């Protein structure tokens, strides 16, 4: 869900038109801002979503092999 408002440990979040009050209590080590996306489970944000670089280690491995082959 996307954070639209933060008040202390509580946030107002939206996702696909659904609005929810979400606790940020479990994310005290994260710096959270309006606009960030969080994964919510039973009303609690359990993690901040981050950008994905590769879906599997094999993608990175294959890319490295391909680069090596090009260089060879």
């Amino acid at each position, binding site marked *: 869900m996307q954070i639209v408002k933060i008040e202390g440990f509580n946030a107002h979040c939206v996702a696909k038109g659904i609005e929810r009050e979400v606790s940020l209590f479990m994310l005290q080590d994260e710096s959270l801002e309006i606009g960030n996306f969080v*994964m919510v489970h039973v009303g609690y944000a359990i993690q901040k979503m981050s950008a994905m670089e590769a879906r599997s280690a*094999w993608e990175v491995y294959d890319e490295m092999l391909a680069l090596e082959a090009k260089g060879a």
Partner: protein
Amino acid sequence: MTLTAQDWLGKIKALPLKKRVRIMNVCGGHERSITMAGIRSALPKTVELIAGPGCPVCICPEEDVYQAIQLALHANVILVAFGDMLRVPVNTPKREIRSLEQAKANGADIRPIASPKEAVQIAIENPNQSVVFFAAGFETTTAPVAAMLLEGVPDNLFVLLSGRRTWPAVAMLLDSDTPSFEGLIAPGHVSTVMGPEEWLFVVKKHNIPAAVSGFMPVSLLAAMYSVLRQILEGDPFLDNCYPELVRPGGNPSAKAQMAQVLHDTDANWRGIGVIPASGFELNLRFASHDARTQFPDFDLVGRKRAGQMPAGCECASVVLGKINPNQCKIYGLACTPKSPVGPCMVSDEGACRIWWAGGVRKNAASSVTDFHASVD
């Protein structure tokens, strides 16, 4: 370039798989996505996907459900629980109350909730009554319960905790003489909270490939590809196919909060028995909110079939991935979502309920397992 689910499926199909490979998942959310997206029937026939211990409602101790029912009926409390728990049957004679739903119909004040926050709110709104929160769940649900307690709750809120850890059940399966799988899809949200490292033992101790997955088909197919390729290359490692959420070490705040509120304990799994270090108990500091110490134990010594699955039900074998849901003798016959016998047909995370929702109607108890042939 970001690969699509179709790309990953193509990569799986291009793998030179010769032998049958069994991949287990241990998460009801994974099983739901696999079934609803039709992933089983899309994969090569050499790949078998097994639903393992991924449903906390299914293995919640029968004694705890019984205790919750008795508290609601006899202790003058408001009992709140996640909605899935309300229809779980206990082993009492048919003339007696067998579920929280039936207790509610008989006048007990039982309220389904979707979040621990609701339990707090109900306690605030009813200051003159005791509120018991029957909290069953794996780590992803137990962590918010810990957060709730640490943040502070009213004096009249008590927790009947039935939290369980997932990895010890997998460890038990792998320590058995005949592990029923060659690859593991590790749970995404459990790993998000607890850290993917909890699953390293699968690779390091048992030499079995593992990949953490999210809940979209693209993540599940990437994890399946990873596990299959690890098997082919013969060099298992723990892959993370849910990198947008799963980070090394998991969620440090959540883990620190859990450590302040809970500790591990040996715990009973319904129909399976005690698994070492697989449960959570509240720390002494929170004893005043522990329903187990604050309320009498209503269970009767020698109650028939206490702790077991309902008679005739093979949920324990389904939970452990020893049989497919439709191989249970009563699947789709005596046991359907409308009239469930076992907890696996009750819960949205139960493999039987998921397979039924996915269109598997035929009972295959007397035939050879073949998902491809069992979907009508």
